[in-house]
């Protein structure tokens, strides 16, 4: 194990994958400037700066992926994906199916998302659900440096286009990262903490908020399980359902706004497939339907807080105890 930041973990993954496979290359606005180590190791053919033009960056990645390369593109901040939407959604996501499987699109699009840097709404937008909704794409949003590395490696090796969202608030937080391969397959959630009374389901930065909430809940005698989705598409339905069947109570937590967010999908999944296990209604704690504010306290308030999670989870437990039969 070594300590490294999320940012460095992603770079370590890139380094290892580029060394392993000469078809892997990376480009973006400032990629060659900021990733000096990669540039030095792999040269300007494989580590490239681009013009400030997200559409052609993503389209070039799609064209290259269709014809034998395995590009990783850094599109910087998630709101800029709006400029690359056509290429990611209409080309990379659809053309495998539309060509009857003749072409595939093994590429990764990296973007930063979430609060923590006070950058305001045009640099901070949790829009992962947009891509979950687009067929042909996969979506990854890790919460730890170890996962960032393992999932990035898996994303690069995947034959499909993968959206890889890096939470700004986690970017420079260090964590333990294994030195070996430590691939993490796409589509596998992780149980971050075992518990029996309530399941807190989250991904990215708010996983840590859930862990803090679980600590506080434990002090109140409530045993919370914390489930980190890690990959939003494909969604690890089995792990979600198993946890819900164990605890019977669910709080879903994410920073993105509620309406048609990932939490809505998880709630629907649970009510369709594990309704009988539920002992209380499902609760979602999310960001508001508002652009992300810049002011630091507002930005922090934007993401669900541990207190709210504790309140919601404790409320669910109390409610079911009250409603329990008296014998």
């Amino acid at each position: 194990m070594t300590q490294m930041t999320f940012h460095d973990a992603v770079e370590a993954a890139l380094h290892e994958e580029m060394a392993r496979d000469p078809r892997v290359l990376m480009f973006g606005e400032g990629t060659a400037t900021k990733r000096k180590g990669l540039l030095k190791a792999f040269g300007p053919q494989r580590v490239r700066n681009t013009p400030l033009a997200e559409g052609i960056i993503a389209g070039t990645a799609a064209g290259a992926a269709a014809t034998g390369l395995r590009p990783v593109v850094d599109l910087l901040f998630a709101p800029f994906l709006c400029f690359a939407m056509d290429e990611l959604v209409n080309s990379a996501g659809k053309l495998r199916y539309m060509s009857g499987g003749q072409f595939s699109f093994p590429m990764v699009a990296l973007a930063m998302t979430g609060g923590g840097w006070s950058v305001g709404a045009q640099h901070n937008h949790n829009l992962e659900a947009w891509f979950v909704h687009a067929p042909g794409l996969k979506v990854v949003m890790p919460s730890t440096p170890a996962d960032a590395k393992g999932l990035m490696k898996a994303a690069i090796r995947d034959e499909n286009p993968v959206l890889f969202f890096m939470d700004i608030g986690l970017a420079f937080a260090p964590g333990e990262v294994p030195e070996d391969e430590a691939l993490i397959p796409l589509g596998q959630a992780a149980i971050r903490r075992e518990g029996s009374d309530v399941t807190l389901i989250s991904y990215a930065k708010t996983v840590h908020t859930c862990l803090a909430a679980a600590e506080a809940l434990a002090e109140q005698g409530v045993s919370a399980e914390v489930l980190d989705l890690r990959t939003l598409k494909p969604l690890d339905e089995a792990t979600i359902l198993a946890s819900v069947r164990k605890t019977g109570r669910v709080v879903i937590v994410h920073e993105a706004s509620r309406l048609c967010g990932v939490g809505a999908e998880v709630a629907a999944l649970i009510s369709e497939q594990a309704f009988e296990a539920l002992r209380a209604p499902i609760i979602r704690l999310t960001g508001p339907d508002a652009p992300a504010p810049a002011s630091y306290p507002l930005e922090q308030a934007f993401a669900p807080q541990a207190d709210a999670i504790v309140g919601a989870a404790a409320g669910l437990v109390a409610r079911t105890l009250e409603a329990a039969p008296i014998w």
Partner: protein
Amino acid sequence: MSLSTTPQPGPTRPELLAAMLRIRAYEERIVAFHAAGPFPNVCTSVGQEAAAVGVVSALRTEDQILTNHRSAGHLLARGADPGRMLAEVMGRSTGYCQGRSGTLHISVKELGVVLTSTIVGGELSLAPGVALSRAMLGGEGIVVCFFGDGAACEGIFHESLNLASVWNLPVLYVCENNQWQAFVHRKETMVGDHVAPWAAPYGIDSLTVDGNDVESVRKAALHAAAQVRETRRPFLLEAWTYRQRGHMEPHDQSYVDPAELEAWMAKDPISRLEARLLADGELTTADLEVLHAEARRAIDEAAEFASTSPYPDPSDLAAGVYA
């Protein structure tokens, strides 16, 4: 403009004509199927056969093609089987994309046709990437990207040319300036008549050619392709041509100036080559009849194959989204 072309073994003039006739016969059959309906929406390339045949005949097998919604001519000129194309248009499982593309998105990997994009400009956005693969994985091939004057008015055209130039990518951009952008005349949306001059600020050489003269197009395309092969840099070729039918079927040209239409119909690329071949004594009227009949027969066979092909199994509806 003098073009540096060395004589190349290639199709004879009657062969160029036959290729154009086959495209025309294919498109006319599509029109007939549509009129008899129900049949999917289609955008035909009638009137643009010289651009398709002229350019594609100048390519080599290892070259790759990206194109737009008016792609039938490019695919047929490349040697696509009209039966499998029609089957695709009709949504049959024997189509090149198993009925998942339809008329507007046919790709044929075995012929190097990476993409037919009906997102206007989609072909321009992927082209540098396909060329990047060529540049990095080796091989002599170049990448040809067909698009319209409408697409040239999009930002992605400029992004594409700029990146291809900055990165020295072997892309032959071919703008088929057919005067129309769906229901809007290019005069309403473009400053100047031509797209070719827009290449210069990106350091890209360009050429405008009479797109209704297949021999001129072929000559220009040989020159352009040779330049891309040699320099491994982009080139922009503009074919000045005309969309003879409405934007899509059913055919509607109520909004077209009759004088413009008449002038361009007089420059029909097929009639022009036929007149030349007759005047030069290379073919007789009887020979022409034979060529027309052959083209029709090939399309008859294609139509028979397509219309008797099975539909895909609906239980496979969502198969193949992911690799």
